[in-house]
């Protein structure tokens, strides 16, 4: 089998690695026009800020690909001929395939604003964007970033480290308030402002004004205010990169339409990662989910389907498990597991604790019925929680009381850090005076000697039970 993968991002490369494991005979070719080698998109901001070099962003050394017989082709796929199973490349060559995986990721979305094609106006998705941003922010004094998502806050931080005065325009009344509940959202607002970013909430872009050389000079907001900006970052989201498939016969909508096993409308052609759009997404998931973790899960799952002809592979229905994601908003880390709906539209209830310092919080959302509770999601800010512990509680439908009493098993903060389980339990007991819980903790040498300590490494978590 000759498998050709278009795109060397996390989805395509994860698929290539897993196919190599499942099928030692397979010939694997990865085509990318962006870079010679796989690199970590998530690290782009650190290259700009000087924490890393571009070389550091390569998760595998260059010998890895030959060693594992994964062929790398640097070219752009102009056209996919699904009748002849052939790719037509920009270099003029062709590449025949037996199976094709489309993993072409996304492109920054534009808003159709006047002036969005000026020099110094861009999104941030790949290395070419980073190179442009590096060149176009040289000597810049003021910048505006548009968009209240994860990339927006990253771009604001990037610009900030180069001493560029930055305004961040957020359409929503509070940062990422469609994802984060009000308290966390406000915490991020405060963190952004604490770093000297001019955060403009409930503010949209109207147009970008040029200077005499066709470069951005200023933006005008929907309030009519003019903000000087020689650089404008547009981070209102990304859109699947599937334009090159027009006329190929592969069915697309926003992305490449796939079934539950990443099969497209054309037999032998598959799609995974940012560019894939599920016709019927798994429960609680979006049809297009443009996340690093999702790309990795897609890549591993589609590899099994691609190797259905082998003894180890089989057509695999995508089952991603509980949702999880993470981010860092300047100095505040954020982790989420399961389902946290800021609107609580499903009737969930919420337990929320925030440190008096205002930079740490724990939220546990739960369902309550007939006196029993069942946790459905975690949001933690400024503290770290164990994924395996949280997911086990979610899978078991552990009760809120059980989870609060055993939070120590979930804490993943470094040694010697201040622990807040006592305060969290106290907050819980104030809110639920009828059913107070006691924090499960052993002290001194008993804690040291206790086999429960194994719980600290996540291998022995006390099982959770719903309240009677």
């Amino acid at each position: 089998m000759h498998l050709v993968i278009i795109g060397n991002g996390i989805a395509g490369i994860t698929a290539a690695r897993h196919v190599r494991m499942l099928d030692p005979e397979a010939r694997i070719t990865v085509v990318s026009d962006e870079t010679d080698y796989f690199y970590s998109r998530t690290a782009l901001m650190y290259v700009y800020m000087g924490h890393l070099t571009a070389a550091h962003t390569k998760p595998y050394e260059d010998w890895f690909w030959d060693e594992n017989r994964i062929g790398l082709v640097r070219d752009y796929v102009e056209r996919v001929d699904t009748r002849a199973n052939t790719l037509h490349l920009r270099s003029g060559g062709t590449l025949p395939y037996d199976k094709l995986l489309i993993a072409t990721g996304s492109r920054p979305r534009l808003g159709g604003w006047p002036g969005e094609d000026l020099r110094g106006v861009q999104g941030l998705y790949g290395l070419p964007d980073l190179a442009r941003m590096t060149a176009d922010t040289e000597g810049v004094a003021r910048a505006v970033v548009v968009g209240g998502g994860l990339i927006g806050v990253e771009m604001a931080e990037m610009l900030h480290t180069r001493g560029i005065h930055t305004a961040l325009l957020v359409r929503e009344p509070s940062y990422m308030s469609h994802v984060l509940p009000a308290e966390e959202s406000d915490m991020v607002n405060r963190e952004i402002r604490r770093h000297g970013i001019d955060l403009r909430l409930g503010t949209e872009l109207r147009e970008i004004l040029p200077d005499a050389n066709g470069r951005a000079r200023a933006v005008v907001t929907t309030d009519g205010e003019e903000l000087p900006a020689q650089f404008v970052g547009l981070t209102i989201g990304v859109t699947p990169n599937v334009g090159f498939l027009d006329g190929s016969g592969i069915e697309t909508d926003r992305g490449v339409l796939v079934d539950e096993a990443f099969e497209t409308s054309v037999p032998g052609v598959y799609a995974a990662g940012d560019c894939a759009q599920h016709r019927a997404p798994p429960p609680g998931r979006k049809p297009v989910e443009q996340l690093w973790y999702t790309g990795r899960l897609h890549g591993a799952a589609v590899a099994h389907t691609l190797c259905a002809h082998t003894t180890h592979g089989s057509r695999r229905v995508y089952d991603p498990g509980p949702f999880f994601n993470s981010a860092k908003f300047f100095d505040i880390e954020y982790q989420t597991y399961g389902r946290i709906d800021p609107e609580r539209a499903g009737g969930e209830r919420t337990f929320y604790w925030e440190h008096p310092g205002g930079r740490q919080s724990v939220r546990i959302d739960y369902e309550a019925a007939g006196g029993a509770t069942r946790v459905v999601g975690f949001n933690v800010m400024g503290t770290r929680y164990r994924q395996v512990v949280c997911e086990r509680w979610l899978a078991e439908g552990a009760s809120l009381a059980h989870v609060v009493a055993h939070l120590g098993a979930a804490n993943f903060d470094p040694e010697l850090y201040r622990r807040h389980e006592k305060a969290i339990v106290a907050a819980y007991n104030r809110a639920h005076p009828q059913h107070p819980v006691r924090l499960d903790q052993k002290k001194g040498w008993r804690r040291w000697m206790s086999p429960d300590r194994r719980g600290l490494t996540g291998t022995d978590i006390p099982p959770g039970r719903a309240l009677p």
Partner: protein
Amino acid sequence: MASIPVFNSIALGDNPAHETSAVQRAALTAFALGVLGMLVALFSEIGAAHPVASLSGIAVLFVGGALVYVWDEYRSRLPGIKNDGVMFSSNQARGILGWALGIVFTGLYVLLYWFPETLDGLIRVADPLAYTLTGQAANQWFLYGTLYTLAVLVMGVRALLKYRHSRYQIVRTLSVMTVQLVFAFLIPHLLVLFQQPEFYFSYFWPLKYDYLWPGTVGYLIESGEGLGYFMVFWGAMMTVVATPVLTYFFGKRWYCSWVCGCGGLAETAGDPYRHLSDKSLAAWKIERWMIHSVLVFVVVTTALLWINSATEGGVFGSLSQTFSAWYGFGIGLVFSGVVGVGFYPLMGSRVWCRFGCPMAAVLGMQQRFFSRFRITTNGGQCISCGNCSAYCEMGIDVRWYAQRGQNIVRASCVGCGICSAVCPRGVLNLENGARPGRFGAPTLGLIEDLDILEAS
């Protein structure tokens, strides 16, 4: 790939966007005057003529300038990981400044070891301190110990400021600063003052190889009497009993990044250069051969010396002396000193610890096979950004394990905790726990990894 050039200015700050403040300029001027004072002392008789004045003048300018500079550098930054501009910095990214410092450091070691008389002018400046502490005039080793301790203390203050958001880093840094000042500077010199053998309670065989060599053992017992017996007993107990027990519970970090003087210098003065260690698989292969060869070398040398001592030269004649002389020169001087510290700005801060230290080799073997320590990876949260690997001073490709959802159990890990600190997603955590499950198989379901190459 796109690359951004190193800013080959002589700017000391690690972020080109950071302008040097007026306070910093003043502090740098004071520091430079301190260095100038040292150079003047080196080439003149001023140290011998005005020892107290030159010592206090140089110390105030040199130490004060450095402290004020780092204070002002971090005062303006919010707590948190801010490695802004590290990879553009001439000093930290092997630019002109990095190479110049590498050459200066290496040159200083060469002078210290082989041409100490050239340092006499500067040694005289240290006389007042030496008389106070030891009752004797300074020699090159006193000067070296003083500068070494100052480097740990001043750069320790920098590390405390830089990592002030992390209680683990604060406590650990205070530990290496205290051990260096008390156990590797004050106590050894005060012992001399009280006419006892100069002894470092924080160094043990095989790092301090001669502490279990017959010559030193004999000398300690002869000249120290009761205390000498205790010193020999202490050294032997630390090597044979305390080391395995502590390493079992905490991993090798209890020594390498909390106690050891070499580690102390690496974690403080070496911190700006920690990312320069080579992360390649090839480097790891070289490391394993080299460090274990040195261990074999020191074990064989020690055994030969004792056999020779027991048989009074009957079996090997002068062979054991040849071995010990070569070990002392090749490993003790050239490797641990000249290369180990001199090459900080070129090869990172742990060249000696990683490729040469026999103590690290012993602790590492135990850490790998018989310890409760591991770095836990938090499920499938790794985003493969590479900060952990980049800032690992031991050159461990931490990301290789983290992105598979696998725990990190590596012989060389000194447990400094910086991978956990720089991780933007809270994926890594240093932990001591039950040994079963310590390696943490790739987290199925979250990452579902079947990796291609065996990683051991």
